[in-house]
């Protein structure tokens, strides 16, 4: 298992805890991601993935523990931390009535990228995703797959070092899902660290590392091959079900 406190980590969680009332959503989660690493956060529904993303994006603060992005503590320097993060939320966060271009422009302005520079980045991102011709269409007119692509493009406009994807393939057809995964896997070569939350084992199989989260705890953290080996062979799916099933029994 890779050392969770690696010095070269660009995103690091240390003993993070979060409760909503009496319900403990995260029970001391530690995690480290290096530049250029694609980490799949694999967990069943209700494992705490969404809570973790709420903390990682500064929507809430953790009750205990520490989250650092590029060395910035998200509790004490949220602005610096947020500047290094790109997010694709589980729920669509596009303004349906604005054009694709206007949605992207809204983002560049919020991130302080001005005029021509913003225009160039938007044009390049749209060209890369093959959406140049849709730039002036309202988002409402786009397919689900294309809306997700726009959100991925938007999350990269400010060139973040860390990309957070919260179950981004939910509701997509297999082809769009594959395309999105390939787009994000390709970002590794640029040194972007990716945290990809999913409950689909097949998406986790291509990750550099898989972190299995269940009932607010990290059950395993390692390469897909090492997880399979630890489970005594078979498939990642079997290893995942074995782990989370056993944990559910213990928690239940």
């Amino acid at each position: 298992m890779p050392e969770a406190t690696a010095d070269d980590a660009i995103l690091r969680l240390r003993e993070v805890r979060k409760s909503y009332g009496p319900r403990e959503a995260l029970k001391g989660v530690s995690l480290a991601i290096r530049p250029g690493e694609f980490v799949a956060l694999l967990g069943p529904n209700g494992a705490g993935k969404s809570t973790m993303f709420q903390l990682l994006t500064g929507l809430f603060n953790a009750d205990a523990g520490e989250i650092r992005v590029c060395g910035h503590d998200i509790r004490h320097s949220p602005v610096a931390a947020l500047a290094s993060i790109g997010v694709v939320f589980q729920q669509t966060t596009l303004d349906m009535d604005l054009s694709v271009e206007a949605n992207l422009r809204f983002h560049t302005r919020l991130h302080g990228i001005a005029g021509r520079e913003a225009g160039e980045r938007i044009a390049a991102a749209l060209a890369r995703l093959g959406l140049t011709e849709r730039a002036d269409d309202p988002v409402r007119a786009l397919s689900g797959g294309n809306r997700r692509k726009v959100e991925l493009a938007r999350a990269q406009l400010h060139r973040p070092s860390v990309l957070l994807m919260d179950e981004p393939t939910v509701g997509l057809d297999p082809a769009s899902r594959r395309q999105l995964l390939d787009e994000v896997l390709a970002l590794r070569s640029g040194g972007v660290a990716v945290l990809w939350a999913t409950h689909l084992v097949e998406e986790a199989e291509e990750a550099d590392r898989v972190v299995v989260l269940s009932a607010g705890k990290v059950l395993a953290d390692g390469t897909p091959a090492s997880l399979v080996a630890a489970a005594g062979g078979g498939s990642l799916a079997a290893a995942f079900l074995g782990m989370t099933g056993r944990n559910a029994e213990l928690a239940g």
Partner: protein
Amino acid sequence: MRLAHALLALQAVTSREVAKFVRQGGRFASALVRPLLWLVVFAAGFQNVFGVSIIPPYDTYIPYQVYIVPGLLGMVLLFNGMQSSLAMVYDREMGVMRLLLTAPLPRWYLLFAKLLAGTLLSVLQAYVFLIIAALFGVTVPWMGWLQVLPVLVLGGMMLGALGLLLSVQIRQLENFAGTMNFVIFPMFFLSPALYPLWKLEESGAEIIHFVAQWNPFTHAVEAIRFALYGQFSAMSLSIVVGCLVAFFLLAAWGYDPQRGMLKRTGKPG
């Protein structure tokens, strides 16, 4: 926070609000029809029922239509301020709020940008109302058009900040109708918008008179009334500014990821 970044973000928020406003043609129409109904229909029917005596800032007897202009300007600001609250709740349901709150800027500043954007729309609507009122023959002194600007901005911000504060509490769009009943109408009727407050006192409604005196909207209307006639109501204006600061701080506190009221519900911005 760099100044250039702050201005770009303000531009982002403002242009989105304006684009939304332009798209919703009906909102603009109803924002104008509402006060016009009061001015043209209500005031015509009641002008001989209410005798309005000479009270500051007026130095002569005035027709009832002229009396209610400041109150109707206040009404325009009040409705639009509540509309900004509705927009916050809508953005939260649509997820756009998350995008806003994860921008690398202090959260209070993002709320402030929302407030300024909403106030810009409020003030523009107030001036369009003044123009239409003038077309109906209900005029205010020419200098008043200019002198009332800062007061409209402050009043609009105060009521917009109240809207932001309410948006912390309103979890769903459906609850907006409740806000109308419990905030907008009491604020409007418990104010000197339609009748001078001494009328309430005279009629023996002492409790209502007392409440009206503590109503922030009362002071927004009075500050507007005095400014339209080139006078300065220090008390009303300072109450407006005080309420603005208080409402905004409470709203910023409500949206704080650590302490806020959002924390309680577990539902993020």
